[in-house]
Every structure is written in C-alpha cells, then in structure tokens.
C-alpha cells in the first residue's frame, strides 16, 4: 500500500469517527438545556409546545412591518416559500421581506402548519439525536427513579383464586427478572433495579426523566392479538353510523347501542400515528371478540425496513402450536380481513390471501413502536401487571467534588503514561502518544454510536484500556531497537521491527478479543458493557499501533529522509 493510500484511509476513518462523535458533541455542547428538557418530555407535551410556538411565531410575523426583511429566526420559512414561488413561476426574491414570505402561502393556516412542522421536527430530531450520544450514568448525572407496583389483585382476579404467599413471591421475583432483561435489551446500561418492600420494584435509569421510556419496559405481552374482521357486523355498524352521524359512540369509544352488533363481536378503533407519534383515531372496525391468535404464541419478533417504502415491517415468528392455530385460522378465513390489535387499538389490517403457518409480516407500526414491541415479545410475558406509582428525577449519586477528583485522577494517570513514553522513547514516544490519543478518540466515538452509558469506573476502564494499548507500541519499539543495535539502517530496522512484532501483537490481541467478545455476547449488564469497551479498545489499538504509527515512521524515513531513529532515552550502542 502506498503511503498516500494509507494516509487517505486514516483520514477517512477519522472523518467517520467524527461523524459518530458529532451527536455527542452537539448534545452536550451546542444544545441549550431548555431544548433538552423538551426532548425528554412526552409526545403530547411536544405537540403542545410546537403548536404554541407556531402560534406565537405567526403573531410575531404578522406584527412586523410587511416590508421589513425577514428576521433570521424565521429564515427556515424561505425554503418552502421558494418552492412555491417556483411552482407559480414567479421570480424568487434575493432578500426576503416578511410580506414576500407570507404572500407565498395560501393563508394563515398554511403558514401555521409550516411553522408547527418546523418546531416539531426541531424537538423530535433532538429525541433522535439523544439516542446516538454517550450517556452519563447514575453516579455522574443522575436520571430518573420510578416506583413500580405489582398489581397482584388483578392477577388474583384473572386467576379466580387468591394467591399463596409463595405464589406472590414467585410472581414478583419473575417480574423483576423480566424487567431486568428488558431494560438490558433496550440498551440502557447501568440501571439500578431493586425489589422494594412486599410488592414494589424501584427502577433507576440514567438519562433524562422521559416518562415514555419507563412505560415501554412494563408493557404487557398478551396485549397483542390477531382478530378476524367480521364483515357482516361491520356493514351493520356502518349503517348505524350513517343513520346517527355524530352520535354513535361515547367519549371513551364505546358504541352507544351495543345491541346493534351481533353477539361475539366488538367495535374497536383503528389508529394511525400522527407526525408527533401520537395515536390518532382514524375510524372503526368490528372484529370477532375472541382473538384468532393471542400474542402468547409469538416466539420472536424482528423489525426490518421495507425495501421500497422504508417503512418498518415486523416479522412475527410463531411457536409450533401457534403456527398450527394460525394455519387453521387463516385457511378458514381466506379473503377475509385480519386486524392486528395492540392494546385494544387496531394497528394494521390485511386481507388473508393464503393460509399462513409460522411467520407473519405486518406493516403499519411506527419504527420505535415496532422495535419496542419486538423486544417485549422477545423477553417474555410479565407474570403480573405492573403500574408506575410515581416517577421522579434524581441527582447524581456521587458528589460534585468526588466526580471532579475522579476525573482528575484518571487524567493524571493518562498524562503520566504520555509523559513517560516521551521521556523513555523520545521521538518515537511522541508517535506512540499520538497513536494513544487517536485510540482514545476512536474508542469514544464508537462508544458514542452504541449510545453507551459512562460511569466513573467505566471512564477509568476506557482510559486504562488506552493506557494498556501502549503495549503494542512498546513491543514494536523494543523490536526496532534490537534490530537497530544489530547495525541495520533506520528504514530496515523499522521494517524488521514491525514485521517481527506483528504476529506477537496480532496473536495477543486476537486472544484477548475472543475473551472480550464472548463476555460481551453472553454477559449481562455491567459485564457486557465492560467487555464491549475492551473489544472496541483492542481493535482500535491494533489499528493505531500497526497502521498509524507505521505510516508516521515510514513518512519519517522515506519522505523526510531521517537516518537516525530517536527511540531511546540513552545513547544506542551500535
């Protein structure tokens, strides 16, 4: 490989790493606290915010002198105004006045929509951004704490008998375990989940106090069902609907005259997500009240994107028993419509074209919803319904000065290694130091993409991994020294040093990598998190030591024509 090519490879990787790191930098440095809080709010709160902001912005715009130039904060409107001008084939103004912009819209309502879209996207994109950043753990930043109660009464009612103390104990123990698994699978690292008292569980999660996050974890499983749409009953309902426009359901969506519908069918709402991700009622359908197949027969669920539309598709994989039931159901109901019902809302409807046995494809879910559904289905059913009793934001568990002292200690350790490398290896030490810094940069950027949660010990771990990565450089340098002492030229010594060190580094690192990979795949919680860091550190340190350092050495000997290697603190005897 030519030096230029290698240099380009390094530059490309640096750029990729920066793009990984950018969301974290943006989130912690560029975004004001107020916006972060909004992004942590519920979707309804975001909706209220965007609507209010849009209303105020419109008021402000109308209050301006219409010939005045458009203020900077509303410049986003020109984008869509420009398109409108072009469609109408009118000349696009160079400097936009308030009037120009307003004129391009058909009316106030249209401006309002445009404004609302802008404010909504602003906050929703922050929500998205957050999931690509490094998070700070409970010890550094705090998070939220929820008290969750196991609803044993409902469990007793559904079982029809009272539970013995052992049964209660068992239900809560299993609920705790499943909760642990789920939170783990959602990628939240370093949560604190503890049993509290008789029937409570306290959950502490790092990150912003976003109530939706917690709700995801305690979702039930039997809530997803496949129902067959009852066409005759639906026709009956439509007739009733037309006869009584505006007065056929009550506020909670129950039909006012239930006797319209034949026995064994129920009316159920069809929902679609609006731009905020809030469920909106789109209409009604009537289904057989007994589910054709319950979610308990689902063995696994995966989310993919449709190749053409990019919309999420959920694949449900059924158990053997579920497959038999589903095959019978679908063969009996060919050409009828099936409704996928989640939490008593119809999420998707599809015509049954042919009998299906073990895998069902469903479209109609929002991506996030589909993913959390898939995870919930994969982690198993909660043995007892859980309710969130209260939810509060909590502060960092480490004191301010403890954090500062910790960070200081870690920094000192790192700097010490850097200084030592320079003192001991002189010029070559500087190359190792550069490799070290790059290594840190790569590791942090990869952790950022993984949405990794950093605690103080894990920061210490990362820095230590980087510090130990200096080993690869030490192996190479010692080898170069040996070759150099034999009387080889600088170029030859470097070449031989790298070649001889290569297998030692590779074997040592691959072995450790295997260990790290095994632990990260099979382990849980803190073990897996740490193993990921270790694995990432190994790959990145091999790259920086073997590739980056080598290029710098080659550059020194080939381009700068250096004849003597600066690699030791004492004079090298030759």
């Amino acid at each position, binding site marked *: 490989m030519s030096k230029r090519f290698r240099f380009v490879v390094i530059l490309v990787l640096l750029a990729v790493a920066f793009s990984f790191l950018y969301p974290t930098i943006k989130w912690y440095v560029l975004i004001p606290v107020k916006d972060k809080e909004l992004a942590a709010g519920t979707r309804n709160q975001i909706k209220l915010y965007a609507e209010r902001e849009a209303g105020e912005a419109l008021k402000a715009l109308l209050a301006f002198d219409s010939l005045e130039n458009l203020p900077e904060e509303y410049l986003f409107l020109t984008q869509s105004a420009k398109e409108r001008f072009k469609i109408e084939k009118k000349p696009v103004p160079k400097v936009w006045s308030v009037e120009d912009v307003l004129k391009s819209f058909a009316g106030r309502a249209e401006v309002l929509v445009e404004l609302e879209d802008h404010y909504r996207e602003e906050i929703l994109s922050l929500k998205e951004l957050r999931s690509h950043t490094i998070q700070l753990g409970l010890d550094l930043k705090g998070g939220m704490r929820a008290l969750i109660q196991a609803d044993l009464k409902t469990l007793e009612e559904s079982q029809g008998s009272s539970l013995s103390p052992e049964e209660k104990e068992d239900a809560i123990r299993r609920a705790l375990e499943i909760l642990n698994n789920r939170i783990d699978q959602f990628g939240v690292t370093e949560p604190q989940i503890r049993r509290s008292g008789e029937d409570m569980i306290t959950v502490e999660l790092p990150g912003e106090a976003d109530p939706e996050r917690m709700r995801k974890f305690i979702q039930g499983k039997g809530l997803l069902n496949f129902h067959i749409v009852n066409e005759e009953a639906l026709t009956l309902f439509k007739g009733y609907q037309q006869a009584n426009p505006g007065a056929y359901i009550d506020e909670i969506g129950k039909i006012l005259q239930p006797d319209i519908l034949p026995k064994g069918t129920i009316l159920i709402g069809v929902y679609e997500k609006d731009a905020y991700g809030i469920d909106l009622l789109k209409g009604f359908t009537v289904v057989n009240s007994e589910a054709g197949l319950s979610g308990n027969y689902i063995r696994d669920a995966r989310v993919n994107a449709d190749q053409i539309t990019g919309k999420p598709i959920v694949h449900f994989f059924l158990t053997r028993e579920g497959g038999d039931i589903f095959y019978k159901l679908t063969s009996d109901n060919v050409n009828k419509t099936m409704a996928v019902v989640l939490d008593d809302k119809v999420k998707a409807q599809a015509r049954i074209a042919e009998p299906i046995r073990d895998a069902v494809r469903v479209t109609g879910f929002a991506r996030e919803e589909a993913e959390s559904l898939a995870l919930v289905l994969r982690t198993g059913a909660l043995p007892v319904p859980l309710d969130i009793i209260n939810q509060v934001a909590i502060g960092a568990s480490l004191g301010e000065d403890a954090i500062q002292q910790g960070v200081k200690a870690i920094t000192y350790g790192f700097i010490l290694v850097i200084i030592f490398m320079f003192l001991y290896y002189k010029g070559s030490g500087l190359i190792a130091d550069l490799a070290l810094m790059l290594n840190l940069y790569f590791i942090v950027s990869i952790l950022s993409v993984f949405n990794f949660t950093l605690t103080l010990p894990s920061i210490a771990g990362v820095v230590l991994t980087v510090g130990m990565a200096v080993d690869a450089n030490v192996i190479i340098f*010692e080898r170069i020294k040996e070759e150099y002492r034999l009387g080889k030229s600088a170029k030859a010594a470097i070449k031989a040093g790298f070649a001889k060190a290569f297998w030692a580094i590779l074997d040592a690192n691959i072995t450790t990598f295997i260990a790290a990979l095994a632990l990260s795949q099979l382990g849980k919680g*803190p073990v897996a998190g740490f193993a990921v860091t270790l694995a990432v550190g190994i790959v990145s340190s091999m790259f920086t030591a073997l590739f980056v350092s080598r290029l710098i050495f080659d550059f020194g000997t080939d381009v700068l024509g250096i004849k003597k290697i600066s690699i030791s603190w004492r004079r090298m005897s030759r």
Partner: protein
Amino acid sequence: MISLSLIFIIAGGVGFYLQGGFNLGIDFTAGLSQQIRINPIGAAAPIEKVRQAMSGFEGLNLQVIGNPDNQEFIVKVQAPQEDRDFQEKMEMRIFDSLAEEFGQANIEIRSTDFVGPRYSEDLLGQTVSITIVALVLILLYTAFRFHFIFAAAAVICLLHDVAIMLGVLVVFQMEVTTTTAAAILTIIGYSLNDTIVIFDRIRENRSLLRDTDLATLINTSITQSLGRTILTSLTTLMAVVSIYIFGTGEIRNFALNMIIGVVVGTYSTIFIASSIVLGWQRAIERRRRAIELKKFGRLPAGPSAPKVEEAKVPAIEAPAAEKPDSERAAIAVTRSQPVRKKRKKKKR
C-alpha cells in the same frame, strides 16, 4: 515459584473459609432506602452538606430527588435483610447523624423501604460460567496458533491470576462491587496479552536457536522480552497508581484491584506460564522414558539421547524438509506451514 503461587491460592481458600465469604458491596446486598426531606425549605441544605453529615456510612448512596431546592434526598445504605435489629439501628444512625447537622425537628423521614440487591448473586455465577466459555475459546485459539501445551499453560495462568486476585479480595475483605468484575476482566485481558507475547518470542526463537534445550530457549525468550514486559507493567501501573492515589470511593477500589492484578499478571507471565510449559514437557518426557525403559530395559542410545528434550518441544517453526527425526515431525503440526509462509512474505 509455583509453590509460592500455590501458597497464595491456598491462603485465599483458607481466607474464604475463615472470613465466611466475600465482602459483597451494596450492588449485591440488600439495603435500606429512605426518602428524607430537610426542613424548612431554603434552609441551605445542599447535597454536599448532607453527604458530609453522613460521611461515616460505608457504601452510602445519596441522591437528590427532583429539584435540588426542595431539599429532598434518597439515602441508601447496606443492611442485610434478615437482621431486623440492625435495620432499626441503621435508621437511628441515619436520623442521628442528620439531626446533628440540621436539628432534630427539621428532619422529615418521608418513607423507609428495604430494597433487595441490585444484582442477584447469580450475576456472579453467570459471570463465572461465561468466563469458562471464554477460556475454552482462548484455549482453542492458542492451541491452533501455538500448541496445546502452550494454550493450556496460558489458560492455567489466567485461572491462577484470577484465583490470587479473588484470594486477596477475600483475605483483606475488600468490597466486591460490579467494578470488581470489570477489574478482573481487564486483568484477564492484560495477563493474556502478556503471556502470549512471550510465547510468541519462544515460537520465534525455536527456529533461530534450534540446538538449545527448552529451558534455555524459554530463558532466552523471557530475557529478550523482559524489557517490554517491565515497561508495559510500568506504564499500566503508573496509570492505576495515580488513580489510586488521587481517586476516591469506587474508582479507588477499582485501581487497587488493578494494581494487584497487574502485579500478579506480570509475575505469572514471567515465572508461571513458561514453567508450566517446561514442567509439562518434562513430565511427558519422563513418561516416555519410563515406557521405553519398560519396553527395552534401557534408554535408547545414540545421538538422539541428549537432544531428547528439544526434540519434544512443540516445534511450530520446524521446517518439515530439514531431516525430520520422527518425534519432532509428530509435533510439528500441520498448520505450522501457512504461518511460516505468511511471515516470510512479511519479511520481504
């Protein structure tokens, strides 16, 4: 040297028995969780002050609830669930230490709960079983790249390091938290790295110093790598010692675990790993001789006798073309070829 290690490991075992197990931190034990408010609002009770008032508690976990101005806190301390008496004493102690700072009437205990451990002890069990899987994988890879004896030595070496680390933890009753698990993982990586680098040197020297016996070969290789072994340990130690000196609480604990690990890891790389290879090899040799003695009634005479030890060495680099005596060929395993080819390419 191996006897020294054995003494350490046995001491750890005895310590485990005498001390009645590990000193498990709050992650693994039940605790008392109290929600406390300090009245009146605006009484200037920032969390730092509360933390200071409660500084006498070991393994204390203190957090603000909601807005810091509300002066509401969550306090978690370790308290074994069975011991009702102990819990009540703990509650009293918390109350007293806060009352001393803020006045008895101002302390409002809003709720008291006994919380279970954050991780059940099967996290530990699970970690052990995963580690075993990882060790088997390591064994397979090193056996593939070196020789089974080397692979076994590397894995035994790891077990040795972990056993001694656990022994130190138990004898000195150092707190075991999740960071301890992290430290042990890091040490496994570190020690493995260290060992493999020396094995690599032995592998390389095998082809260069063909006529030396295994003991000399190992000695030479360790000496040649000594500079690197010491330097790497030194840089790592510098980092962890500085964390130990300047840090507090959990990361100080982490650093201490790491210091022990680095020392043990380096020691085992230099003195244990290769000794195992040598001892194993000699044991095989002795058995072979015993069998031959039984078979022929005397040792086979001839030039092969003095070279016996060397001949049995796992000869990764042994070129197949060069007058292979039968024993060497048996161990000069097939995959030695591609490895050698690759390296030759590198050199050019």
